[in-house]
């Protein structure tokens, strides 16, 4: 499943670039994500909790920033998780590309998502909708984080045991809110259509 998002922030490219390279900051914007520990070389372990209607799935796995290309201003975030119960998996290759545009900066986010097991098979199309809404939320959050002046600075060390708690304190977009919006969208699509046809 390939998803594309883009957002523009009123911040210089180098500031955006730094934020994107700080996985702990980036992770705050991923709903349901918790970074547990930092490994070496921008390699983290963590958990991601996803709710799909009656189903709740927790993935445990790794997140890694890779192929950091300062010249081309691209960085890839690789997320690879396995269900903590069950045999499904989720992996995402999120490519962030930065394009400077005067004082503003545009970030192009390309995501290649592969999900297996029950969540991928639950309710035709729901996973696609949830994923695309989540990514939109992720982009929005990143954009807000970068442009807000009072962004909490990441700890200088490469994460610690309290890192997870600290990150959770921040208001991350909730899956419930995403689901609510999806339902609204779907309803308005149908209602809108029939109104037009009247």
């Amino acid at each position, binding site marked *: *499943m390939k998803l594309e998002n883009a957002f523009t922030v009123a911040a210089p490219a180098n500031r955006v670039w730094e934020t994107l390279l700080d996985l702990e900051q980036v992770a705050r914007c991923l709903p349901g994500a918790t970074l547990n520990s930092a490994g070496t070389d921008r390699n983290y372990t963590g958990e991601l909790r996803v709710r799909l209607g009656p189903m709740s799935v927790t993935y445990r796995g790794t997140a890694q920033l890779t192929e950091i290309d300062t010249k081309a201003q691209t960085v890839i975030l690789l997320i690879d998780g396995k269900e903590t*119960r*069950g*045999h*499904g*998996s989720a992996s995402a290759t999120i490519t962030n590309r930065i394009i400077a545009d005067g004082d503003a900066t545009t970030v192009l986010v390309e995501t290649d998502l*592969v*999900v*297996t*097991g*029950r969540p*991928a*098979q*639950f*309710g*035709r*199309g729901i996973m696609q909708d949830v994923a695309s809404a989540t990514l939109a939320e992720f982009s929005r959050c990143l954009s807000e984080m970068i442009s807000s002046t009072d962004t909490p600075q990441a700890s200088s060390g490469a994460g610690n045991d309290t890192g997870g708690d600290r990150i959770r304190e921040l208001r991350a977009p909730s899956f419930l809110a995403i689901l609510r919006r999806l339902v609204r969208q779907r309803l308005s699509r149908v209602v809108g*259509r*029939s109104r*037009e*046809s009247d």
Partner: protein
Amino acid sequence: MTPGRRYVGQRVARIEDRRLLTGAGQYLDDIVLPGMLHVAFLRSPHAHARFRLVDTAKARAVDGVVAVLTSADLDSLVKPLTSGINDSGESMGNGIRPTSRAVLASHKVRHVGDAVAAVVACSRYLAEDACELIDVEWEPLPAVMGVEDSLLPDAPLVDDALADNVALEVEVHAGDVERAFAEASVVVEKTVRHGRSHAAPLEPRGVVADWSADLLTVWTSTQIPHLVRAELAVLLGLPEGRIRVVVPDVGGGFGLKAHIFAEELVIAAAARIVRRPIKWVEDRYENLAASTHAREMLYHVEAALAADGELTAFRARITGDAGAYSCVPYTPWVDVGMAANCLIGLYDVENVAYRASSVFTNKCQTGAYRGVGQVVAAVARESIVDDAARALDVDPVELRLRNCIPSEPRRTVLGHDYDGGTYRECLERVREAADHAQFRQRQQALREQGRYLGIGYCLLIEPGAFGTRQVRAHGSHRAFIDTVRVTVEPDGSVVVATGLCSNGQGHETSLAQVAADGIGVRLEDVRVVQADTETTPFSMGSRASRSAVVGGGATMRAAHEVRDKLLAIAAHALEIAPEDLIIEHGQAYVRGTPTRSFTIRELAQIAYFEPERRPASLAEPALVATRTYDPEPTFSNAAVAAIVDVDILTGLVQVERFFYVGDCGVMLNPMIVDGQVSGAVAQGLGDALLEEISYDQNGQLLSSSLMDFLYPSTTNVPEIEVHHFETPSPVTQGGIKGVGESGTIGASAALVNAVADALAPFGVVIDRTPMTPDYIRSLVAATVDRAIAPHIAS
């Protein structure tokens, strides 16, 4: 009432319904044995992956878990499940590739839901929890998800033992097809992508196995107990005489349960390993992901016609999506072979050519499902006939009548021996029932108001009652015989024992009607015992619309043999010729002198216990007869019509009316026939409009619950108006024909034609099933000018 025909032909209330409707039925899951354990399967989340079982110790350590079984544990106990091989180890023919697989995947999974381990535990809950603790290292491989991809030169191999992904490939040529096309005035062609369907019985599969005292007993929710026993014997290395297969009440099979499944072998072997009875009842997810799917096919068909509308030739190229395994015992031939063989239907066509193939993909295996192959063939054939009618600007019913064969028996160009019926009459009658001319007026009037109604027809013939000749004409090497035993017990009660097994069809009633008439007893004195290899004689199983014909025929033969013994005893006692006696209502009496009589009980007492009163000629007096029947090919026929109302804004198709006119020869019980027709039509409606198994491009199963795999329900299925002709088959015992599937075969095609007719103003071509709202909307949107109707075009 004619003597000998007191019950057959009557709408006798179903005997089994008291039990089934009051909740007293005993289904597979109702079986509870002392010390019984439960199994859950660890199933692949990947469509295609190599795997390594890293660790099962954590699962084994769960309190209540008795065993975690993998391929390594079973391989020494269970031989691989083979398909496409005949009894002498050679290919079955028809270009079928022999294949072989372990009953649990050993190093590679081939579809989502493929089983890799079985956890045996005290409860299903524990077993499922323990499944989650098994540590597996998956190495996902690229998945083959469609027939086109499957045939690419660099396509990943689904079955590593084969050179490519071709499951079978066969070409048939009859008549001079090239010439017919060269000389044709009109050639129409189309490609229909038939969707991946699924039988989805309300009761899913289930198996209980128990080993004790050197006897393996397997309860399984199947349609083919004797064939399951044969396969268990071969693969477990046991004599058939030491295996008992019992089928409890079955909540629907529809062909899905007419296969032999790896799970049946696994559960039997697991029970041997742990030395305790084991139960597995699949859940809906397993049923949707890992039993059998059906029908997915690309059907390219061409028809050649003369200027006057005479159909002169059919040509087809059929490619089936077999899924990951070759189903046992049929192979994917069951679907594409039948789809090819049933191409010409009732049309008078002497030139036919087809190339049929089936390819492996990383989806669940496909197999038999009600109307196997024929549903797909009917959609292709009947929709191209409608296309031809549009091309020639003639009425579709008239074009069908112009080309319909006469109602007499005939051999077709493909070598099928039709046994006659009411081929044209059904079509004329269904047109009358649908009030065709009046409908056209209403259709025109409503179109002007922006409502789109359509009418569609299907003319069909259903090969039923598979016996040896019928099966061989359809390309199988197998011989088919069925045996029924009829016993009059010493007290005069009657027991009919048959290896056929009702999955809901009502054998306990229809076969009892046949036996009661065949002997001359009251219906309430007859009991039908089914589907237990220990208590019933050999049968090829209840499938392919064969139970009424083979079961009815064998029961008739056995009942007549027993009646002859009763007549001999009565004749001897009354000192009269047997020809002068009548047996009915449980009494044997002298024709014209009803007072000179014996009850069946009195005659049975003589037979069993009073040698002095028996005729010397009756060397074997026990009132039991076991008779075998292998019917000649017989075919029922039908014509159906559907009227639909298509909402072009929502894409929803409402079936307004549905008409079925059929001829299945002598009807044992017209009420049961009507039930078969109605259920079959509903299933065809599901096939045409609602039911679709879908996967994403990575092979994840998207229709993994009944939230996404949509059954038809009372809100979708209209009242079905059923009419019958009754032309006895000249070739079967009692003139009976099979009729279990024609409703399904006809419904899909009629609905495709009805929707095409409704949308004729838009000039759309229906090229896939099911016709979901999304699909209908996209068809209409593609033709509508955005400027005029942006709400439709968007």
